[in-house]
């Protein structure tokens, strides 16, 4: 899918990767030279639970095409249960997105262990493809009326 200005549409993905599993899996993808599309920018968090809904929504409402959250497999959380919280939050966020009219597919949660470099590369590839077929985040192109800046009372 191409954008209006004639350039090929390259989705912007923001990643929240858990330090212990998914970030390490992404590292292994690197060490193993597994090629995947250059569309993700990762923020390292100590636990996938650190992917605060406010951060996720900030990114999505700001026009990022997709948000990727990578955590440890169930039962493998470095902090025992953070990933279970993440799973619940993501379930809620997807509903929230759906209601607002943002495709829930723009938010993806994956379990990637430190040894699953290939899985990470595959997940990013797949997510990028999916976002390409979805097209740009509508909020990126939407023109909002300019915010009125209030006069500060001194």
């Amino acid at each position: 899918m191409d954008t209006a200005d004639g350039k090929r549409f390259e989705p912007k993905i923001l990643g929240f990767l858990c330090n212990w599993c998914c970030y390490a899996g992404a590292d292994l993808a690197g060490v193993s030279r597994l090629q995947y599309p250059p569309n993700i920018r990762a923020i390292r968090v100590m636990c996938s639970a650190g992917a605060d809904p406010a951060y996720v929504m900030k990114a999505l409402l700001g026009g990022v095409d997709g948000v990727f959250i990578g955590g440890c497999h169930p039962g493998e959380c470095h902090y025992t249960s953070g990933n279970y919280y993440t799973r619940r939050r993501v379930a809620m966020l997807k509903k929230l997105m759906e209601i607002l009219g943002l495709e829930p597919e723009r938010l993806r949660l994956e379990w990637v262990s430190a040894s699953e470099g290939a899985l990470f590369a595959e997940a990013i590839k797949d997510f990028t493809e999916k976002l390409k077929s979805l097209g740009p985040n509508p909020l990126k192109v939407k023109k909002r009326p300019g915010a009125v800046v209030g006069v500060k009372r001194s």
Partner: protein
Amino acid sequence: MAKCAEVVQDILRGMLRERLVDEVVAFGRGLTGSDILPLFITDEQDIDRIVTTSYCPSSLAKLVARYGDRNKKMAIVVRSCDARGLVEIAKRRQVKPENLYLVGIECYGVVREKRGEVYIFADKMEVDGEMMPLDEAALSPNCRRCEYPVPTMADISCRIEPEGDCLVTVNTEKGKAMLATASVPVQDAPPSDVAAIKERAARWQEKDFGDIKRMEPGERLDYWLSQFDRCIKCYGCRDACPICVCKECCLEPDRGLIKGGEYPPETLFHAVRLTHVGESCVNCGQCEAACPMEIPVSKLYHMLSKEVGSIFNYEPGLDIDSLPPVSMVDEEDLLKTGVDFG
């Protein structure tokens, strides 16, 4: 309709007299006699100002959380959304449930504007003493979607009959003690038939939510953006909301999430409210009532809480022992291996 107010007043007067509670919170007549306000009553003499009309200008749950002294024993005249709000507030430790004595009133809807003395019943309404068929359009929109007419989570629940009778059901041990001092004889009410109300709720939920759901995603987004664009960031929705019990709200301009001095605020303002309320909205409708720009926020929050509740099998405000579903995990989580909950 005075008869039913008398029964409720009698129960409350007894509780205050016997020092079962330190304070009574209810809607009642203000000093002019025609205005209706939330009252915090400590003097027995003021009890007869309490009314049971269907005009409810604010959330008593929120008022109790914000202004009540949580160490005082309080009797509160609640409708089910108030009671459910208090349950959610109790989960957030802003009230002590052991100090609350909930006098529930069955509620088939409230009106937001005071145009005469209005009582709403399951299928009729009384306006200034005149009985007429129920006009659903007159109800607050959230009430039309409400499927909880009976405050089962209150200690006692009072049913006001169109004829003026007041039938009382005891729900808890505490409720028994509350009735012990009442001088008016109370009858045990037969179970309420809530099927009709559930049907009405289903119909209106289908309409309100269905209208949104049937839109194409892009259309839906445009719809909400056009609504949010009217927002003047008055914080009225937040201030009215019983779930928002923070001492200092993170949406305030100096907190880093939302830029100050700008309106309409960025959409994140509404998204953050949604993430906070989405797991616990009790559909009291106060947010929407408070919104000067008439943004249908109650519809939005209620819709999300219904969706979220269906995933986690959670209904806000019913069970004090189950924590907000996005702020907890339980044993069953451990058995699920997928990325999707459920």
